[in-house]
C-alpha cells in the first residue's frame, strides 16, 4: 500500500469543493493508496496572504511542512494553490538561507522545526506517476469510448517550478483521460488562467478569461471538461451562468474534477463522487456509459 500525508486545503475540506476531496479519497482507496490527513493543518494562505505579508505567508506554509515532516511521507494536496504555496516555501527555504533563518525563528516560537526532508506533490502527479496509466486502464469498468473531454490544467499545477509536467503543454491529464477510454480534445488554452481569486474583486476580467476557456473547449468538440483545482472548477462551473448572461452565450459544459471522472469510470459508489455538486450537470453526457 502506498501511503501519503494528505493536505486537503480549505476549499476541499469544508468549502465548495468538498466533493473533490471525497472523490479523491475514494479513487485513492480503489488503488490501494492511503491519503492520511495531516492533523492540525492550517490554511496555506494562498495568493492573498502572500501579497499582503510575505513573511507571515511563508510561516503559515512552513508550519504545515513541519507537521508533515514528522510523518516522513510525501505531502499530497489536490489543490493547485495549496500546492504552489507549500512547494514554494519548501523550495525557497533551501535556496534562501536568510529566509530559512527567519522562518526557523518563527517556527521555534511554536516549538517546531523544519529540516526540508519531505516532498510536496499535487494529487495529479500521484495519479499519473505513482498509480499510473496502466493501472487506471486495468481497473476501468466503464470504458469512456467516444467521450470528448477538455483537459484543463490551469496555471499552478504546472508553474512556476519545473515539476512533473510541461509548464505550458502538459500531458498527464490527457493521458489519464485516454487510459479510461476517453478522448482528450486538443485544448490550446489548457494551462491558461481562469481568473483565479480575482473573480471576486474584478469579476468582469475573470469572466472574460472563463469565456475564452469555455469557447476554446467547446469549439474543439468537448462534451465536458476536467479540472484539478477547486478554484478553477468553481470559476468555470459556478460562474458559467454569469458568462452566458454577460456574453449572451449558451454554454452547458459540465466541469468535472478528474477524480469524479475516474471514480465514474472505475464504477465506484456514486455517493462519493458528488455529482449533485456540479452546477452544470454531467448526467446527460455520462448517461450512455452507465
Amino acid at each position, binding site marked *: 500500500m502506498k501511503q501519503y500525508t494528505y493536505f486537503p486545503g480549505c476549499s476541499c475540506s469544508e468549502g465548495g469543493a468538498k466533493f473533490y476531496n471525497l472523490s479523491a479519497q475514494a479513487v485513492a482507496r480503489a488503488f490501494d493508496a492511503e491519503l492520511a490527513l495531516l492533523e492540525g493543518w492550517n490554511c496555506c*494562505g494562498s495568493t492573498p496572504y502572500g501579497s499582503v505579508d510575505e513573511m507571515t505567508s511563508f510561516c503559515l506554509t512552513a508550519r504545515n511542512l513541519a507537521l508533515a515532516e514528522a510523518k516522513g511521507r510525501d505531502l499530497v494536496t489536490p489543490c493547485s494553490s495549496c500546492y504552489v504555496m507549500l512547494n514554494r516555501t519548501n523550495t525557497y527555504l533551501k535556496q534562501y538561507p536568510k529566509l530559512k533563518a527567519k522562518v526557523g525563528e518563527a517556527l521555534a516560537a511554536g516549538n517546531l522545526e523544519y529540516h526540508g526532508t519531505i516532498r510536496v506533490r499535487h494529487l495529479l502527479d500521484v495519479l499519473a506517476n505513482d498509480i499510473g496509466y496502466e493501472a487506471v486502464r486495468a481497473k476501468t469498468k466503464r470504458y469512456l469510448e467516444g467521450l470528448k473531454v477538455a483537459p484543463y490544467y490551469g496555471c499552478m499545477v504546472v508553474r512556476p517550478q519545473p515539476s512533473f509536467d510541461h509548464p505550458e503543454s502538459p500531458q498527464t491529464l490527457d493521458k489519464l483521460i485516454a487510459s479510461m477510454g476517453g478522448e482528450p480534445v486538443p485544448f490550446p488554452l489548457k494551462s491558461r488562467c481562469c481568473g483565479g481569486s480575482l473573480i471576486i474583486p474584478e469579476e468582469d476580467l475573470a469572466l472574460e478569461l472563463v469565456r475564452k476557456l469555455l469557447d476554446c473547449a467547446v469549439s474543439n468538440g468537448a462534451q465536458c471538461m476536467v479540472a484539478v483545482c477547486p478554484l478553477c472548477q468553481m470559476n468555470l462551473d459556478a460562474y458559467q451562468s454569469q458568462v452566458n448572461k454577460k456574453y449572451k452565450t449558451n454554454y452547458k459544459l459540465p466541469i468535472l474534477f478528474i477524480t469524479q471522472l475516474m471514480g465514474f469510470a472505475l464504477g465506484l459508489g456514486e455517493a462519493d463522487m458528488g455529482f449533485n455538486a456540479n452546477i452544470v450537470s454531467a448526467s446527460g453526457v455520462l448517461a450512455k456509459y452507465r
Partner: protein
Amino acid sequence: MAVSTKSFVDEICSIPGGENIRLCIQCGTCTASCPNADRMEYTPSEIIAMARAGMRQEVLKSNAMWYCLSCYLCTARCPRGIKLTDVMHALEGMAVREKLSHRRTLTPTMYGCFSDFVYSLGTLPEFGFMSWYYMLTNPLRAYRMLPVALDLLRHGRLAIKARKLSPEATTQLRAILTKAQSLGGEA
C-alpha cells in the same frame, strides 16, 4: 513603518525571486505573456524598468501588480530567471504596508479580508469571508452575485459552518504568526 533606506532596486533584489532584476534585458516576454497587461497602468516590463530607475512611489501607487493573476507565465518564460510573479506579490505587500495601495481596485481589500480571516482562524471560511468582503466594499455587489450563491447553496456547496482548528493547534499557530509578524512583512 520606516521606509527602507536601500535603493528600490536593492530592495527588489532582496526579495526571494527578485535577485535577478538587474539582468532584465527588456525583451518584453513577460508583458506579452501576461493575460492582464492591457489593464495595467504600466506593463510588467515597464514595472521592471521603472523599478531600476528608482521610481518607487510611481510603482507602488500603480494598479499594475493588483492585476497580477499569479498565473506564473512570466516567471516560467523569463529568459533571465526573474521570478516576476514573486516580485509583483512583494510590491503588493510593500504598497499595503506603506498605505499606498491603488484606490480604484478592490483587490487589496479582498486580499486583506482573506488574510485577516486566515490570521485569526488558521482556516478560510468561504461564506464568512465573502460576506465580510461584500460588507466592506459594497453590499450591492453581493446582490449581483446572488444567482451564483443560490446555485452553490442548491448544490450543497455553500458551507456556512467553518472548519475549526483544535485549541492546541490554534495556540501554536498564533505563536508562530505573532513571531513572523514581529520579523516584518518582508521575506
